[in-house]
């Protein structure tokens, strides 16, 4: 554009040397044409940019370093795209890995996203997608997600149950679901037990302290760790006097033994 306008000026100067009104008339005609032309091209460019704004229905996620997919473009979190992204997720036209990425993206959206992600937790056929979706619900209002979280604690898939337990602990109002957490401390899956124990500590559920000591003898080191830490959080004085600490200080899991030693210092 700048080059065309510079050319116009050169042309004007060249024509000026011819002299009198005809020259000026001709010059302005030429200049007008050139400027009109550049304006047209500029407008076309703007129009082209407008056309190229994100088409969320075909946007592709990128592969993270961990190997799973994620939408990394911040533009997609703008409120204007939330509705289309929600439709795309709920219509389940994409494969499970993309649906997981969509659910994660929506949890960061500035627009309305909760309904779509709740729907996904409730209805998606793929447990990995339900698992990815439930994590984002920590950002939703409690009244909008309490029911789905409590239901998801009974999901047939252990991964979904574990991530639900974790999400309850991460939610600012997760203390409202302490009973649900306590109810899965005997789950067959170690991850579920571990996340439930951890979340009991995270939400500060002192009334649930008595449900934790049995987990100090769990077969899973992760469960023992989470239970011990939760107990320390809820009641450090009582925890420091636990008779089990003498055994835990020599636990095969060094995280457990380190924590036990620290508590006993």
């Amino acid at each position, binding site marked *: 554009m700048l080059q065309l306008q510079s050319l116009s000026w050169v042309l004007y100067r060249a024509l000026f040397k011819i002299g009198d009104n005809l020259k000026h008339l001709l010059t302005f005609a030429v200049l007008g044409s050139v400027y009109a032309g550049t304006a047209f091209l500029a407008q076309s460019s703007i129009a082209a940019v407008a056309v190229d704004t994100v088409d969320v229905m075909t946007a592709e996620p990128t592969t*993270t370093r961990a190997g799973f997919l994620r939408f990394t473009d911040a533009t997609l979190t703008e409120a204007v795209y939330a509705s289309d992204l929600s439709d795309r997720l709920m219509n389940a036209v994409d494969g499970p890995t993309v649906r997981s990425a969509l659910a994660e993206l929506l949890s960061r959206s500035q627009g309305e996203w909760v309904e779509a992600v709740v729907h996904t937790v409730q209805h998606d056929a793929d447990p990995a997608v339900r698992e990815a979706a439930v994590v984002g619900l920590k950002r939703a209002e409690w009244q909008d997600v309490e029911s789905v979280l409590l239901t998801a604690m009974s999901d047939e898939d252990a991964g979904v149950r574990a991530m639900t337990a974790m999400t309850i602990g991460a939610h600012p109002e997760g203390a409202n679901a302490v009973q649900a957490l306590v109810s899965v401390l005997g789950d067959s899956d170690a991850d579920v037990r571990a*996340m439930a124990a951890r979340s009991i500590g995270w939400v500060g559920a002192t009334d649930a302290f008595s449900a934790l000591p049995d987990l100090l003898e769990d077969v899973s080191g992760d469960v023992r760790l989470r239970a011990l830490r939760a107990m320390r959080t809820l009641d450090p004085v009582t925890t420091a006097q636990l008779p089990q600490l003498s055994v835990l200080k020599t636990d095969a899991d060094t995280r457990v033994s380190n924590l036990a030693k620290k508590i006993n210092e």
Partner: protein
Amino acid sequence: MNTTKRVLFGTLVATLALGCGDDPADNTGTSSTTTTVPEVTIKSYLEGMDEVVPGIANVDDDNGNGKEDWRDGGDVPGENDLVSFTFPADILAMLGEGELIRATLVGGQSVRAWSASGDLLLEGSSGLTTLEWARDGGEQTLHIEHDYFLSEAKLKLEHVGAGGGVFTRRNLRLVAGPLILNHHMQPSEDTWAMKVTSWGGNAQMIDTFTDVLGNRFHELSSNAYGGDVWVQDEIEFATTTAPGGHRLDVVIDSIRDRGLDSFPENELEGPDFTVMVWGSGSASSQDSFGNLEITPPFTDADGTEYPFGRIYYGEWDYGNSTYSIHNDLKTFMEEQKVQDPFTLDTSFLCVGHVDEYMTFVPDSTAPRGFRLIMSDVDMAYEILDAADPNISLSRYNSGHGFRDVGEIVDDNALRQLNNEVQEDYIDPTITRLRNTMNLSDEEIVLIPALFETVSGCYNTNAALIPGTANLIVGHDANGALELFIPDPFMRTNENDYASDLMIPAFEAAFPAEANLNWIDDWDVYHMGLGEVHCGTNVTRTPTTNWWTEALHFLD
């Protein structure tokens, strides 16, 4: 001249040399005490030879025929990986009538020797195991070739009398150098990163590398490699060297085999630059080479010197399983001996790589010339707790769901998560490194960091604040230290670095001699669960000779 005459002559020369001329300190003008010049005999020469004759593995393809040069069996145009061993003519000239020097190759299945004209002189598998050098044979040179790293054979040298008896025997070890991985104290040479225009792009990162490194920075094409931006993960650069300036660059090619899999063959492989793979089958995240790093050189508490540092990598425990680097590569690295690997627990990380939370940087003011840069969540909360909670953070809003500092600070679960990470993993890592490397407090520099659980990562974590430890150590054309560091973007005005909550802490932590280049890696790398180091790779200049500094590992 026979031996006796040589001794007398040498003594005479030495005496005359020391007797002539005035000692400046001796004002009497008389000669001072005489010193005997050690005489050289065949025996003394043989016994004085260095036991180890260093060589180099001939595993590259100097003639470009698609085969390792060792397998060509000689006559390789452009061959430059044979190291010379010379037996001097003046020593041979000391041999008496009928005497000879016998050179015998023992255990020579992986070592052979050639003449300058390309004749095979010694090779165990061919039965060519013995050479005999006579008095008038002139200088004898063997061009030694090895088939692999640390391949070894014995060269037995015997001074044999006319009657066949052996006067003196000396066993030499013909040893090829180990493969040595690079550490951050070595000067950087060339740097690679991929240029990306989608997903927000990485123009600022590419421009910064170009501006600072000039033609020593190389852009990789996103289209050519399927947008696989994780250049650190696909390959690890290493070298093997020998006296006389011999150097072979080796790309350790991961079994990760994602989009960048063909990069080393396409753009790096050639004479003196080969690509090798250890392991096969499906890869875990721990097989990526952001999870394979090397400490600076150090001496441990027991006094063991590690002139090339030690390799360290992360292991990731889940249930009863441990995910680690492929056993073949692990075994190979252990067999190289000079960089004895050790492990760190990276189970708290979604990607699970050691480069996500720690690194080493050169610092000439440090006791041993380097500092450990280690993530610290307590430092991050100290800064954030003291900050104005209303500071808006647009990047953290779209990227992590935190609109301002207050939302991060007030997230109780986030704080508890980070306390767990510090207590269960970061503090034990510091203890492990302290014990392994005999680190002092002065050598440990803490930098603010926070982690969060990310959907898709189950209950493991990734950097919330861009992992500042995940940086690149480079040098400009003049050798000045350049650090390329992920920008934390802990500020409202992205153009106002001085207002950033974290940057002053980082600047105080990093060496004063370093130029700090803040890199916007947010869209392409940080949101993809990596940072600057993950997306970059660097060759470095070998600075230490294994044949003088690391023989204590090879005895």
